[in-house]
């Protein structure tokens, strides 16, 4: 009997409108670049294609904001939603269970927030990309950045392993290519190949783990995996009891470890960030890291939660001990290696590895916490601040690359006197990355460490206390290399050619990201509350067993019967 799938609810397509718009706009950009912009000279072509790409991002951003508004309205006033959209769509948007496309993607406020975040960051990245000439093929380059974003949007919405794998590949394949786009430089091509080899090996490892999970659990959906693991763990507790299950989880952890550049799997990151054109590096550091961490959070805190620390032993036979070790090694190694760097982008790369370690402390805290969504919310807040701090810093790197064709730390010499405002912005961003109050980075670290310390008395708590202590020590170490940037800007005399005017394309990303870091540092509460409300739906079981809108005859039991 041929397998039959339950029918699709076509209203689901409204939910992916931002991603669909963006994917379509990538094609528009490529075609316009090939056709209409061909006759323009290089400079005019860059501007025209850049504006076109920004228009599409604006369109997708508008769609994402409208969806965000509709979804938040659904929680408060569903009646008004029905009045505005009619009964069919109104009911659809007002319903509680927010899983679309047969349970493969999540929908709702938590997804919309991150779509808005990705699109806002993408707009800044594209603006930055059009600020200087690192390539001639603008259409392809911008379209690849746009399609990578589509992958990120699906990656952080995925509720099922195969969707997760496909969107992960969509994101990273586009990023491999755009890394190698600066064809005039050897190191860009080299970075592209290194990123590709490490990235595709990690995807392959992840996929092998996925296939084992599929075989053991018989399903790839997060909530179903969680149910099955929770049912099985009474007889075979955790990783020790089950060789295949343990290797599956560890392989997936290795795969994610590569993607977020955690310590034993970080080798690609410094090379890729140094070699890639600054705007692309900014997008790898911010967008792809946010999306991978959200996916990691969903897989491990949702699907694999029953195996986190099955017994109360300190380094019990669960994956939490592994995460704790990886986190400790990552932050220590990242910070120590950053101390000796002379290249600004490479310094930022090691700093971002170290920040990956702090983020994993948040993940460990969210695992243990009785109120996991609060700890996960702290983690998401940290991610937002981290993204904006790094985006601004990479914008400065793009500026250096444009005007001095180099991105060493000593190229920053004398910037404080030369460009006081933007130098002050960079100083704020560096202080935020150290974690100095009152900038956003301070509250990010504070909330993560508070959530880690704020657990009830259990024996796993001791791991978290040690992790927090190590994190504080590392923050102190990290101050040394961030201060070197400040020292170059303010204490050294100018060396090399002067910087040209930053122009809006460079100044806007720097100013806006500094504004975000400062404003959400002074008033962190609204963003923290928003992120905590977003974290809840990400970690709780969402089920496709009871679709409200689908006809009652269709259920998973019939589809399973059909499969046999």
């Amino acid at each position, binding site marked *: 009997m041929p*397998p039959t799938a339950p029918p699709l609810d076509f209203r689901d397509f409204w939910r992916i409108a931002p991603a669909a718009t963006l994917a379509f706009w990538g094609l528009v950009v490529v075609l316009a670049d090939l056709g209409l912009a061909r006759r323009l000279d290089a400079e005019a072509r860059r501007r025209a294609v850049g504006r076109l790409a920004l228009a599409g991002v604006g369109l997708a951003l508008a769609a994402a904001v409208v969806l965000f508004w509709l979804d938040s309205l659904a929680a408060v006033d569903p009646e008004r939603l029905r009045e505005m959209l009619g009964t069919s769509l109104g009911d659809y948007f007002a319903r509680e269970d927010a899983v679309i496309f047969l349970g493969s993607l999540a929908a709702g406020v938590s997804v919309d927030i991150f779509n808005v975040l990705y699109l806002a960051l993408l707009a800044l990245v594209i603006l930055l990309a059009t600020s200087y000439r690192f390539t001639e093929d603008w259409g392809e380059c911008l379209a690849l950045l746009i399609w990578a974003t589509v992958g990120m949007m699906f990656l952080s919405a995925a509720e099922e392993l*195969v969707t997760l794998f496909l969107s992960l590949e969509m994101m990273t394949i586009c990023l491999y290519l755009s890394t*190698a786009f600066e064809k005039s430089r050897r190191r860009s091509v*080299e970075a592209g190949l290194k990123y590709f080899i490490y990235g595709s090996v990690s995807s392959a490892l992840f996929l092998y783990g996925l296939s084992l999970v*599929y075989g053991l659990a*018989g399903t790839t959906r997060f909530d*179903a995996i969680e149910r099955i693991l929770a049912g099985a763990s009474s007889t075979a507790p955790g990783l020790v009891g089950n060789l295949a299950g343990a290797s599956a989880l560890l392989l997936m952890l290795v795969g994610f470890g590569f993607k977020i550049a955690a310590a034993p799997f970080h080798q690609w990151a*410094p090379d890729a960030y140094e070699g890639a054109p600054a705007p692309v590096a900014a997008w790898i550091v911010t967008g792809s890291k946010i999306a991978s961490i959200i996916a990691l959070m969903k897989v491990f805190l949702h699907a694999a939660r029953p195996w986190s620390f099955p017994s109360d032993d300190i380094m019990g036979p669960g994956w939490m001990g592994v995460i704790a070790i990886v986190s400790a090694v990552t932050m220590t190694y990242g910070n120590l290696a950053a101390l000796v760097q002379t290249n600004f982008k490479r310094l930022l790369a090691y700093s971002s590895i170290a920040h990956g370690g702090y983020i994993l402390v948040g993940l460990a805290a969210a695992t243990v916490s009785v109120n996991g969504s609060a700890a996960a919310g702290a983690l998401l807040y940290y991610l937002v601040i981290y993204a904006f701090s790094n985006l601004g810093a990479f914008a400065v790197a793009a500026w250096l690359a444009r005007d001095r064709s180099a991105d060493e730390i000593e190229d920053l010499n004398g910037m404080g006197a030369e460009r006081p405002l933007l130098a002050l912005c960079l100083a704020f961003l560096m202080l935020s990355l150290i974690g100095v109050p009152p900038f956003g980075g301070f509250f990010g670290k504070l909330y993560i460490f508070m959530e880690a310390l704020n657990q009830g008395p259990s024996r796993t708590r001791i791991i978290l206390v040690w992790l927090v202590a190590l994190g504080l020590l590392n923050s102190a170490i990290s101050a040394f290399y961030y201060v070197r940037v400040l020292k170059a800007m303010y204490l050294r005399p100018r060396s090399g050619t002067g910087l040209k005017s930053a122009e809006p394309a460079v100044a806007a990303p720097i100013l806006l990201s500094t504004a975000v870091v400062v404003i959400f540092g002074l008033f962190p509460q609204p963003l923290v509350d928003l992120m905590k409300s977003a974290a809840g739906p990400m970690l709780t079981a969402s089920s496709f067993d009871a679709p409200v809108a689908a006809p009652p005859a269709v259920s*998973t039991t019939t589809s399973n019967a059909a499969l046999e």
Partner: protein
Amino acid sequence: MNNDIPLNWFLYFAAASFAIGLVGVMLRRNAIAVLMAIEIILNAANVNLVAFWRYGPPAPGSGPLPGVILAILVITVAAAEVAVGIGLILLCYRRWRVADVDRYDTMSG
């Protein structure tokens, strides 16, 4: 189904291919050989997926995606990856005139 090859054999075969691929990735120097080793790992996962689909009973609430369809998706992704990989290797080869991954060492530290 009683006379079939047992599921374990498929799993051992897949695990062996996985190990061969992983060793290949780590030991081979030629970029094309590394690419081939990555393909072997991906195909080991494919063998797993199809074998589990054939033998395993689907769990309740498993959703509509059976293993064979996953395998087809994986093949598609692998094809895209090879296309990108060959393109990048070609770019590197044009600059260095070698396909040896150890020689691409402009950046380090």
